[in-house]
């Protein structure tokens, strides 16, 4: 790159300059090829040797804010931690199963199906706090009468069968559904509530007011910019958005008390999952989350910590 940059320095572009730049580049190319080969072979042979001491965390965007803050602290103490949120909870568990990461963040409990998929892996989930999936609608819809929805009503909505908020006592405004993409913890919690274990949701009707979203941030963005929209979204992500409101589920409002007591049906524990009981850096990381400071971070992000749940 340096040699290429040198070319522009001279105002007059005469041939010798160019040639020189090019010659350097060709040599660089040859050198680079050799270097890459060395690196590649080193990497291949080093694979069976010792892994570098990086703690790899990936999964749910719901757990991510807590993990990110804790990782910041640990990094300042010299630990290497990488965090990724591609694929959500199920993505995290998948990658843990494939040995690509050390800790999976999950916003849904482990299912039998998860354990069955990775028979060689001993999935150990450590609860770090609790969140609830809120059913989020636009404030205008909420204020004009849609304050609570039943399980049957929710099923109608998320199957794409509901046309207007009028059906649910709201304004005559089309219902626009943002559903979570497959694998997101939020979606699995909702599906489990709507369809019990095992049952899978029926295919959605193509009514044109149904789109898919990924992480919590994207869900919030799309809700904020779409009239008449509804989506399942971690309650913690609703705070501070004046356009959005939570509705009660089966007349149970989403309150900390109702989450703790288990009355609110869409409450969900947040987990850090490891292969076997956590060791080394993973142990340090999880201990940090469970410590007093870590638990403070949990509440800062709008979740209930273990003390609030009465587990301390």
């Amino acid at each position, binding site marked *: 790159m340096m040699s290429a940059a040198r070319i522009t320095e001279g105002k007059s572009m005469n041939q010798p300059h160019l*040639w020189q730049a090019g010659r350097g580049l060709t040599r660089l190319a040859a050198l680079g*090829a050799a270097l890459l080969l060395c690196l590649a072979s080193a990497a291949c042979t080093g694979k069976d040797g010792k892994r570098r001491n990086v703690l790899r965390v990936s999964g749910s965007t719901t757990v991510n804010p807590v993990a990110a803050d804790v990782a910041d602290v640990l990094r300042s103490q010299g630990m290497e931690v990488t965090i990724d949120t591609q694929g959500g909870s199920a993505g995290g568990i998948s990658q843990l199963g494939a040995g690509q990461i050390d800790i999976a963040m999950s916003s849904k409990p482990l299912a039998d199906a998860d354990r069955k998929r990775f028979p060689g892996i001993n999935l150990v989930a450590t609860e770090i706090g609790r969140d609830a999936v809120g059913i989020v609608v636009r404030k205008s819809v909420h204020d004009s009468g849609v304050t609570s929805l039943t399980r049957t009503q929710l099923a109608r909505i998320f199957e794409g069968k509901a046309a207007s908020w009028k059906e649910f006592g709201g304004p005559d405004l089309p219902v626009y559904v943002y559903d979570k993409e497959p694998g997101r913890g939020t979606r699995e919690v909702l599906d489990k509530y709507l369809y019990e274990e095992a049952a899978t949701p029926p295919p959605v009707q193509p009514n044109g007011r149904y789109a898919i979203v990924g992480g919590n941030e994207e869900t919030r963005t799309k809700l904020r910019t779409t009239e008449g929209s509804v989506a399942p979204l971690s309650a913690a992500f609703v705070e501070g958005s004046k356009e959005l409101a939570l509705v009660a589920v089966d007349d149970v409002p989403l309150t900390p008390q109702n989450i703790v007591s288990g009355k609110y049906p869409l409450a969900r524990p947040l987990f850090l999952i490891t292969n076997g009981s956590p060791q080394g850096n993973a142990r340090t990381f999880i201990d940090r989350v469970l410590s007093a400071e870590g638990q403070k971070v949990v509440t800062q992000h709008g979740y209930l910590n273990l003390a609030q749940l009465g587990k301390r």
Partner: protein
Amino acid sequence: MLCAFLISGVTSGPVDWWALVTSGVWSPQQSLFGVLPMIWGTAVVSLLALAVAVPIGWAAALGLHELTPARHRRTLRMAVEMLAAVPSIVYGLLGVVLLRGLMSRLFGVTGGDSLLAAALVLSVMVLPTVVSVSVDALADVPDSVRETGAALGLSRVEVIGSAVFPQARGGMLAGAVLGLARALGETVAVFLVIGRADGPLASTVNGLLRSILQPGQTLTTKLGGPEPLLAGTSGTHWATLCALGAVLMCVIAGLTLLAQSRRLDRRGGRTRFPPRARRHRGARDRLGVASLRTALALPILLAVGIAVVVLERGTPALDPGFWATPAAGASGGGVRDQIIGTLLLVATAGVMAAAAGLTLALLIGEYATPRVAGWMRTATLTLGGIPSIVLGLAGFWFFGSALGWGKSWLAGTFLLGLVATPIVALAVTAQIGRLPRERLETARALGLRRSQVVRSVLLPYTRPALVTGLLLGLARAAGETAPLLFAATVFSGAGGMPAGVVDAPVVSLPTHVFNLAQDAADPAAIRAAWGAATVLIIIIALLLIVSMPIRRRLEKERV
């Protein structure tokens, strides 16, 4: 590696090809893999994009080359090509921030996510391809053709329509086909505005038409979503996803080869529909010229508009602190590590592309027999046409799973290198083709061995092309998002400089913007996104600006 990926992928589980193309329901949980809705989405989005981009692009190319004085052409062409230099993630960002709102206001699309929104984003992205290739085709038509037409009393638009266009038609069609290839392969920009809804395909014509204003899914957005991560790396789900990638790649490779072959050039012996003299020729001429000029103004205004929007919102990028501080939290701080990561990836990819591209070009241009050379050229073109999301998945499978590297910057280097290599190879091959044969013959007559000829004649002659191709290739690679998402970058926690190879991801500017764009309703996030996007554009612009004098020199040399 790519072939290994696709073959092993497709064969890793049973794929019901028949159901794949006939069933309209996609539901991995129920093992239903019908791709019709995605094929429909891909077709609608790409063809709509072409329907917008080809007429405007052709008209703009005609306005640019036929109606603009030569001394202004370069400037105007640069303005149009600026649209091509904008990385796709920035188009995605523009789509999320501006187009979604516009869609809901103009077309009453609630939320704005729709096939039409994706098509509009794509049409802008495809436009510069159509214009550039068409202008090149027009430049190949000798001026004597225009003069002969005009000397026989034809008006300006008649000269264009009857004398110039028939001879440039092949090249201009190639521009449209390359545009289609680009549209089919685009992932990130479409991903952010299409809604990604799988929904079963409507069964009535009316329903199909309505679906254009509704959220949908394309083949690339399906592959860009979470499913490759959930599918594991074997079984029907994974095999089906690989099959989608393979089909997409084949279609695009076919289109790329079609555009490069002379097949589009074939001319009929005589004009099938002879033109007729019309009434009001003067007025028709003025109207035609005005509309061609308007068409030319359109991409230029778009380019200027995008520049204004980005600069206006990208103010954080003007603060040196933004360049020099690391990111903090989800959307705070600067982008220091992302800059370092991107530069590292681009630099190492550059080294790889220079080595691979030069080798490939020398093999094609000098060492290989014509037959093998033709075959290798085809392979290079195909490589250049591979959609970047397929590269990303191949990298995820090959480096992440098969080699067990986890996410690694070196995987990113390889993938971005693969993006840049064909551009380098084609630039150098073209330059070798321009080498006067006498020079080679003289050198051989002096008794030089082949390696000596290559070293003393071929290499010096092709160096400018190597530098130019490399810079252009890297400008393209620097903006790539999709290959990095799966193989090389993470959300946070990685620095710009990795400490090793295995499990050594980096952060990068395009993926950073991609993450922030999803949080677009948050003022802090969107501010940071624009800032990072602006930094990325500045880096790409620098690469292009550095390449420009060299390009200009090359053009002069050719005359």
